[in-house]
């Protein structure tokens, strides 16, 4: 599906180049339940990383560790090569890490501009500066070619599923973000809407962002991902360029944590156990 040369013009694949976000040995447990065992993950700039895994594999916990919702018990996160501690969503936002959650986190009763600026409203003389926010939101949407919305002032309740997802993504990239995590971006979307969102994901990559798409849907993963990472029961069982994966091996990694074949082309992650 992915042609081998299509790595990206940002050139993060040049060997020796540090991935924008690097996770090493991330452990996380909740009470007696160990959710993540020494997980390593690389998110290079200008690439889409597809994170797959069955239910309960730890995809959401891993995402939340990056987003600052959970703190890992052990392990280290590196941003541009330097170690960082992400203790809150605000810390993540300061690094330029934005998350688009599955339930979209949009307020239905607010319009598109209000949602895109929620929590970061621009003020002028201590009052909301609606004009400037509306202009900036319109710029972001047209920059991402999200053009199907009727009016930027319509309430989010009146948008289609794909439009809502697009607004949620646009909201995430509006803040000069460098890393965008998309949790099941195409769940519950129709064919046309899915295509619209995947196109948007590609545009984020072309802007040089490090994008991670968390999805059950292997069709989507193979369509947009440059790299694939597979979690199985809290362990990263495989990670590497998408060209090294095929549907069958990915499904096997997801369901059994390994492939039947002796050595897949994908680099099996070093599960140093927990």
């Amino acid at each position: 599906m992915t042609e081998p040369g299509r790595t990206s013009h940002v050139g993060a694949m040049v060997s020796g180049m540090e991935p924008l976000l690097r996770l090493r040995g991330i452990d996380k447990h909740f009470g007696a339940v160990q959710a993540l065992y020494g997980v390593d993950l690389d998110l290079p700039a200008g690439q889409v990383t597809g994170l797959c895994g069955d239910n309960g594999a730890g995809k959401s916990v891993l995402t939340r560790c990056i987003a600052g919702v959970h703190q890992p018990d052990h392990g280290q996160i590196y941003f541009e090569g330097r170690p960082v501690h992400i203790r809150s969503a605000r810390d993540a936002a300061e690094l330029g890490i934005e998350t688009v959650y599955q339930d979209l986190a949009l307020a239905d009763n607010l319009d598109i501009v209000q949602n895109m600026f929620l929590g970061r409203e621009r003020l002028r003389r201590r009052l909301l500066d609606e004009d400037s926010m509306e202009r900036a939101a319109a710029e972001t949407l047209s920059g991402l070619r999200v053009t199907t919305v009727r009016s930027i002032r319509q309430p989010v309740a009146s948008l289609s599923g794909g439009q809502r997802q697009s607004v949620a993504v646009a909201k995430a990239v509006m803040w000069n973000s460098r890393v965008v995590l998309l949790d099941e971006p195409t769940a519950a979307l129709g064919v046309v809407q899915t295509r619209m969102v995947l196109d948007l994901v590609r545009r984020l990559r072309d802007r040089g962002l490090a994008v991670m798409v968390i999805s059950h849907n292997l069709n989507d993963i193979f369509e947009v991902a440059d790299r694939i990472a597979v979690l199985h029961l809290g362990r990263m069982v495989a990670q590497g360029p998408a060209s090294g994966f095929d549907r069958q091996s990915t499904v096997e990694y997801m369901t059994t944590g390994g492939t039947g074949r002796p050595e897949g082309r994908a680099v099996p992650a070093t599960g140093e156990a927990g």
Partner: protein
Amino acid sequence: MAPIENDAAAEAADLTAAVDVEIPPEILAQTMGQYLRGWWLRVKSGDSGVLPVVVGIVGIGVAFQLLNHRFLEPLNLVNLLSQSTVYMVLAMAEIFVLLLGEIDLSVGLVMGLSAVLVCELVQPGGVNWPWWAAILVTLLLCAGVGAVQGTFVSRLRMPSLIVTLAFSLIVEGVTFIVLGNSLLVGLTERRFSNELALYDVFNGRFSPLIGWIALAVVVVVAGAWLWRRDTRRRRSGLVAPPAGLTAAKILLIAAAGVVVVAVCNINRAHVGVIEGVPYIIPIVLAVLGVSTLLLQRTRFGRYVYAIGGSPPAARRAGVNLVATRTVCFILAAVIAGIAGILFASWQVSISSNIIKTANTYVLLAIAAAVIGGTSLSGGRGRTIHGILGGLVIGMIYNGLYLLQVQSWWIDVATGGVLLTAAVVDVVSRRGATTGSMVRS
């Protein structure tokens, strides 16, 4: 890729119509014609904004006038308007909490406590404070009650229904304690300037000339601001209503103002002269103005709507839910306190009967807010809804009273109106959700 382009083309073609049932027409319309078409489409689909309440006000007015020709006499109209101000202010208090998706059953008794307290504080034989200090301390104490309730609701996430119900009872007891053994307090000794000042809050009037001047200033300032804002937004290509709509809004404000001032300036006394705009009209407008500014133009207001629409979305956006919710309960209690001062000034003498009145008024406040168009489920509503709904409640009470209907029948009628408004709220919300489910 072809399907997308087709889709986009179809949507673009649709845009020329500039009419969509699900989007308020003032957002899409470029001309007055498009606005009216879009508006009519929404009315037909059941989402009609303030139309039902405006139609209701006109309908109730016509009906009562047909039944009793005194209904629209200047004296009665001014009385009606004055009495409605208490409902209006109390409804505006309730709206701050309703917008969160919570409910405050204590606004009635907070109003009662405030009324008793403000009177006690100016009694010449008692505390004998200056009127302004009495008002200030009363409102501060109300704020305290709101802060405690808000803390329970926002920090412990207890159901606001229970918290405010419990506090209703607590405040009721405190009111009796403040009222003391005499069970009566009042502003009857008007030779004392502090009592007179409080008495004048409700009963004082501007001279007719001042009324006209104030109206002219308000209309010119508000009109110029509206016109300049919309023109600027139209010029810079931002979403703005068509010029005709802006003009129509300004004309409507001017017309409503002229009617009110003209009616108030007619001599309404049977003997002697009683004329002029009562002080309470600008007081209510000030509460409306400040609360609208807070809700529509500040971060706080935006967060109130966000919490009412989706608390998780607000939390993820970094909104401080605890602080925002608490402030709403404080504002509700303070505004209820203002209603209490109006009530004390209106009633002049306050007895333990105020408890029953307060218990009725809290329901009237909720009714007024919902009748005006504020949703019980949060996230939808404006403080102007309190004004419109309060007027409807005032008209019903006043009209039925003029017809010498027994008070229990008046309660039955008001309850029926509340029920109707709640049904409309639920039905329109259901319409909205099925609409969006079909689309997504």
